[in-house]
Structures are given as C-alpha cells and as structure tokens.
C-alpha cells in the first residue's frame, strides 16, 4: 500500500515538474503569443480604447497585409539559410509597373495582375539563380537587387506618382466581402467565417492531440492546450466581430489568411517544406542525403519574388497610386517580423505562425504608437529595441536549455 502511495506521489511530482519543464522548453511560442496580447492590452489602455475600435482593427489588417504576405516568403527564404533585402524595392517596382500598365498603357486589370505576378516570379528567379547556382551570398545579390529595383521604379515612374486606379483594381486591397445573409451590420458572413475557422482550428488541434497520444508523443499538457486555444478562438471571434460591425471582411484578409494557411501547411506537412528546413539546418548534410539543395534555394527566391509582387499590387491598390517611395525600407520591417517570430539567422529554424505573429507585433506597435502621437523618431528606436530584445530572449532561452 505504502509503495503504491509513494509511487502516486512521485507521479504527481513528475507531472508538476513536466508542466514547468514544458513551459520552459516552449517559452518561445507562448512568449510570443503573450507578448502580442500584452502589447495589444497596453495600447488599448494608453489609446483609451481606440486600438480595438472596429475601424482601427480594419485599418490594422489593411496596413499590415502586405508585410505579412512578404513575411511568409521571407520566412521560407530565411529558413533556407538566406536573406532577401530586395523585397521592399521589388514591391515598389511592381506597384509602379502596375500603374504604368493600367494608367498609361490601358491594360485590363486582369492582364496587369497576371503580368505583374509573372514579373515578380522572374525577378525572384533572376536573383535566386545567382544565389543557388553560383553560390553568391544572398545578402550581396539581393542588396544589388534592392538598388536595381529602387532605381527601376524611379525610372518607370519618371519620378512622378501615377494613379488613380480603377475601382476593380482598388478592391484588391480595400474591397470587402459582401454579407451573403443580407443582414449587413453585423456582417453575418464575417461571423460565420469566424466560427468556421475556430471550429477548424479546434478540430485540427484535437485531431493532432489524439494522433500524438496514439504514437506516445509527449504532448502539450491539456491545461495549456485549453488556454492557448481559448485565447486563439477568442481572438479570432473578437477580430471577426469587430470587422463585422464595420464593413465586414476585407478581401485582403482572405488573401492573407488563405496564404498563411497554405504556407503553414507547405512548411510543416510536405516533403518540400521539410527539405527546406534540412537545407537551412545543414546544407552539406542535406545535399548528401539527396536533397536538391540548389533547386530548393532557387525556388525559395522565386516564391519570394511572387509574394513581393502580390504585396506590391496590394500596396498600390491601397494607396490608389504608385509612388517612387513605395516600399522604401519595408524589407527591414519584414525581416524584423520574421526574426521577432523566432527564426534563426543561420537558417533551419522558424515557423510561419511565428512570422505572422511577429508581423502583427510590429504592426500593432506601429499603429498604437501612431495613435498615441509618438514621433517617427521614437517609433524607430522602440521598434529596434523590441527586435533586439526578442532575439536576446531567444539566445538566452537556448543557452538555458543547451
């Protein structure tokens, strides 16, 4: 009897220890989520509730959509062990190209979109070619690309702004999904979509848990699973509710959401994604294991070019004009978002969800500080320090574990 008793006690103790251990080893993921929540609460208070007003939530989504879209591509590039400094310039260039095609050459919106996305792919391929097959450091190739495409957009626009765009093009960014239920406000389509997403997230989470249990994979403790999912579900419902009381779901949110899911799936569940992580983790070992390292590196850049072009179209549609300054220094925000999200400079580490949350952290800070009326000077300083703090936190965690 006493033997059983002490055994129980031991088990209980080890369960407690493992709960704490779990939190420590997964500090990064939870830390990131809690940091985002803390930052939102903070700005909600200091802006007297302006941050989470429906109109501002809608703005937040519109303002950050192109950063998030590019962060998806950047995460893949960085996981593959490279970096792309040219995305801001490429984005500006594609926006300028779209303006020239539509306004000057009178191309149709569809033709323009296809041509611009194709152009992004070509730009990515051109840069990726040198990085992948000639082994020229990506930092240098894309630094050159940054200069080239900054110049190219100036040349295309002849230093002027070109606009406006037709309505159908603008709706890429500022359009909203109409309410199919006819209620209008709150927008029932938005609410329904939100509920559907929450259901899918919960279903996938539970399915994974039961599968993990079957294979004896040590899983997240139930308490954490519940709390985390409650927070995520709450956040999604809050987001869609806010949006529904304004103008409903922005088109760009759908684009962004679908892309995020697609890329999260690609990186985590496919052979393609797995091989990119292996490539970034140890390129030589990956190559000797039959991973086509050159082709994958090339593809990460092609993909980045495509997403940068898409971001360029969305950005131009949002401003309703193409300016020579579009996308200036934006690559830094994108790269910062990916690193805040936990990616490693040396490659092989990082997640899509991390990059998206990282981008939102940057976005909320930008937005909140602007509402507070903090000058751009202080904003830059604060953003810089947050980036540094996030990376220090990473390194510190790693050392403690290691």
């Amino acid at each position, binding site marked *: 009897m006493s033997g059983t008793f002490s055994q129980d006690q031991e088990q209980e103790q080890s369960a407690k220890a493992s709960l704490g251990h779990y939190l420590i080893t997964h500090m990064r993921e939870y830390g990131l989520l809690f940091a985002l929540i803390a930052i939102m609460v903070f700005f909600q208070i200091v802006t007297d509730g302006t941050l989470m007003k429906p109109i501002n939530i809608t703005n937040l989504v519109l303002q950050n959509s192109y950063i998030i879209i590019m962060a998806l591509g950047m995460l893949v590039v960085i996981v593959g062990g490279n970096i792309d400094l040219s995305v801001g310039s490429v984005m500006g260039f594609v926006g300028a190209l779209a303006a020239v095609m539509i306004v000057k050459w009178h191309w149709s919106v569809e033709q323009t979109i296809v041509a611009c996305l194709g152009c992004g792919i070509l730009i990515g391929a051109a840069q990726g070619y040198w990085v992948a097959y000639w082994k020229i450091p990506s930092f240098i190739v894309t630094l050159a690309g940054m200069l080239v495409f900054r110049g190219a957009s100036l040349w295309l626009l002849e230093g002027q702004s070109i606009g406006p765009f037709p309505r159908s093009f603008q709706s890429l960014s500022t359009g909203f999904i109409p309410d199919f239920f006819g209620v209008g406000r709150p927008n029932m389509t938005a609410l329904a979509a939100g509920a559907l997403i929450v259901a899918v997230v919960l279903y996938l989470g539970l399915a994974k848990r039961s*599968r993990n249990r*079957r*294979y*004896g*994979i*040590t899983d997240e403790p139930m308490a954490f699973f519940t709390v985390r999912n409650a927070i995520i579900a709450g956040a999604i419902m809050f987001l869609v509710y806010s949006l529904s009381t304004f103008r409903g779901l922005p088109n760009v949110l759908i684009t962004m959401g679908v892309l995020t899911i697609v890329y999260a799936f690609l990186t985590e*569940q*496919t*052979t*393609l994604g*797995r*091989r990119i*992580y*292996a490539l970034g*983790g*140890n390129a*030589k*070992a*990956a*190559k*000797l*294991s*039959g*991973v*086509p390292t050159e082709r994958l590196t090339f593809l990460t850049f092609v993909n980045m070019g495509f997403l940068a072009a898409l971001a360029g179209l969305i950005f131009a549609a949002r401003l309703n004009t193409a300016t020579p300054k579009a996308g200036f220094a934006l690559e830094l925000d994108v790269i910062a978002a990916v690193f805040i999200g936990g990616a490693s400079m040396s490659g*092989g*580490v990082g997640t899509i969800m991390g990059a998206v949350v990282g981008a939102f952290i940057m976005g909320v800070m930008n937005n909140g500080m602007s509402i507070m009326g903090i000058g751009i000077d202080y904003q830059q300083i604060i953003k810089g320090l947050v980036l540094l703090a996030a990376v220090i936190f990473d390194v510190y965690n790693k050392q403690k574990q290691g």
Partner: protein
Amino acid sequence: MAALLEMRQITKTFPGVRALDQVSFSVEEGEIHALVGENGAGKSTLMKVLSGIYPFGSYEGEIHYAGQLASFNGIKDSERQGIIIIHQELALVPLLSIAENIFLGNECATAGIISWHDAFTRTETLLKKVGLTEAPSTKVDKLGVGKQQLVEIAKALSKEVRLLILDEPTAALSEADSQALLDLILELKTQGVTSIIISHKLNEVRRVADTITVLRDGATVSTIDARGRDISEDRIVRDMVGRDMAHRYPDRERRAGEILFDVSNWNVTHPEHTDRSVVKDVSFHVRAGEVVGIAGLMGAGRTELAMSLFGHSYGRNITGQARLMGKELNLSSVPSAIKGGLAYVTEDRKELGLIIEEPIHRNITLANLPKIARAGILDSSQEAQVAEDYRKAMNIRTPSVFQKVMNLSGGNQQKVVLSKWLFTDPQVLILDEPTRGIDVGAKFEIYNIINDLSREGRGVIMISSEMSELLGMCDRIYVMNEGAFVGELTADEASQERIMSLIVTE
C-alpha cells in the same frame, strides 16, 4: 617524483546530472598519464574543470597545481601556468595560415605590429618538431584533419607548455600518423613535458602511458601503474565498461555471394586543381553479403573515392563505370546514386551526416521522405512509427525520438545516421570511419549492425584508419595509396604488417 597536479574530490553538477562525483586524479611531473573511459564517463568535464573552462567556484573540491592551490577563472589563467589543452574539435581558423594560427592571440609582435619574419621562422622550427613539411603560409583549410592536429600541437609547443592535455588526439589520424604523434609525445616527455592523453585507442594508451586512470560514470574506477608492466587491454576495458568484454569484434560467418557492386577504371581529379589526379584508375568489387575494407594512410584518397562514387559529391572529370549486379549505374547526382542503391555514411558525422539541431525522427527520414508521404504530404504518424522502429532496432538510447540529435552521444548519433541510410533500403553501404570517436561499447553495437547488414545480403564497404578494426571486421581488404589501389588481401592473408608493407613499397 612529485605530483605536478593533484585534483582532489572534484564534484561537478549540471542541472539534473552529476557529471563528476568526488573524482581524485593526480599526475606526476614528467609522466604520460592516460585518462580513459567510455563517452560520457566525465573525462572531458574533468579536463574542462582543470583548464578553467568551468571556473573556480563552479565545482566542489580542490586543484593543486605545481604546489599551489589553483583557482583558474578561464582558459587564459591555466595557459599562463603552462596547462595547454587540445580539444577533440580542433580550434583552428580555417582561412588563416599555419603561422597565423599558431600565434593567434600570442602574436610575435612588438607594440601590436607583427613581425612576419619572426613568426614564419619560429613556425618552421615548430613544424619541424611535429613532423610537418608544409610552408608556414599554407592556409589551414588546405590541410587534412590529421595535419591540422599536428598544427594544434605545434601551437601548444609555442606556448611554453608544461602540462599538455590531448583530448582524443589520434581519433582523426591514420595509423602511421598516429604512431608519429605518439612518438612526438614520448619525445616531449624527455624534454620534461608532462602529458595527459585522453583516448579510446587502448593499444596507443598501452604504448605510451606511464599511468592509466579509468573513469566510469563520473567516478574514478582505478589508477593503474603501467611503468615497466604490460597491462592487457582486456583489463582496461573491464574497468571501463564494468564487465568483461570477451571479444572486441563480434564473430561473423563469411557468406559472400555473387558480385553485387563493381567499379572499373574510376578516375577523379581535384575539384580546383584539375591537373591533380586524386583517384587513379581504381577498380574493385563487392559481393553480396561481403564486408570489404579499404585501408590506407590519411590522404590516400579513400574518402575522395567514396564521395566521388556517391553522386559525384567530390572532384571533377570523373570517369569510369559502376555497376550494380552487372547493370550500369548512373551516379551523377546524389538522388540518382540513392536510387541506384547506394548509401554513404560520412566520415564527419556532425558536419556532413546529421542536421544536428533537428530531432532524431526528422534526421532518420530525410533521405527517403517520399516513403512517408503521399503526393508530397507527410504522414507524421507514420514518420513517428518509422523512427520508433529504428530506435528499437538500433538501440538508440534516447528518451524519445523527438529529441534533437545534438543531445545524443557520438555512438547514438552514428546509429541515427545508419538508420537514415537503412531507411533508403540500400544494396551497398559505404561506411567512412563508422566508429570514429565512439566508445568501446557502442563500437561493438555498430559492428553488430554491420554484420546484420551483410547477413541480409547487402554489400558493405568500410573505410577505416584503425587497421585492427578492418582486420577484425572485413572479408577482404583493398589497400589504397596516393589515389591508387596497391593491393588486395583476403581476411586470412591480411595483417597490419602486410598492409603497411604494401603501402610502403609502392
């Protein structure tokens, strides 16, 4: 003779692990003291305590060095007192020259201005001492691992060494180079240098050591006085593993079948200096179920031959034919080599074999992802199952297959690499130094795995710098020298002497 070093009751704990438990260890002035034990026995930890990498105060116990209580706070402190440690992982800067490396942090300079003339002439003398003929201006990355090791020793000599600590100095060296290195250590002894040598190679320990201390599980098991006495390897092994080890190599039945893999007239040139021929007209074959060894000195071209076969991963202007069961193979890329039935376990586990930051299961499946995927989508449950199967079959010691391979010992890491290749179901495995840096117990397990593979009718090509290992494991041994095959011996004919004489007469 007086004790130069006395470590008393050293205890060092890490979170959750007691790495050293009241270890006492004393070294006399002018002796060569061997420190042996399985991986994880605490040898490296003890040396890190000694050299100040784990600073004074982070451990319990006392260190007395040269009659004084030592309180080193870093490697600089211990180096100032003449304690020089040469680590298993070499600490050279690959893109700097030999001379720059030797005097790194200790430059021949006045007021910060380096005298290159001085540095080069001193380097030449030092290199001569360690038996290297390279020019002092040679970049270190142009040297093989073995020669880099000698540069490390030259570097230690430049620092007025009094106590030299060598952590696995011969692990990466060929037999002949190892002998030269051991002679060097004996030579240094006559000049008054005291050495501590950590090694897995017991024949070397027997040859040079005056005293042998055996560690097991963080505690001292025995200290053996070996002066003028012949201590048997079995005796040492018994203390190391805590049990008798009847045989160093498992018994194997020879059952060579039909010719499985054959290579004819294989030629490879250096990738940069294309006029330099690295593999010269090599032809050989492997039968089903046969273990074939390739013996040779460091730089003989064995790894280059293996890598050029495996998807042209090394060299240029590769010519020659390779056939599997008489059918011509396309080996022009790694994926086609894998598809052709080849697997290559690299010499350098951490750099070329594993993705060290990734977990075990992802390493095991990497070379054959399509097998656990449908239409490019991974089945993570199946993957976990596969990894779990290999964990059991290979006896990989880990709490879970989701652990990073970084956290495994060398032997278990090697089992992960072997699992990865077995998952591709290869016909022919090329194993390049498969037991390097692995302790005695794990070596035996690897040997058993190799025998299992041959029993399944696969062909195994084994490259090793430990001749006794080739003699103990192989059915047939090819001898390679300067890029060419200079001889072929069956297991019955082969002996260390015959292999050496084949190399030397060429």
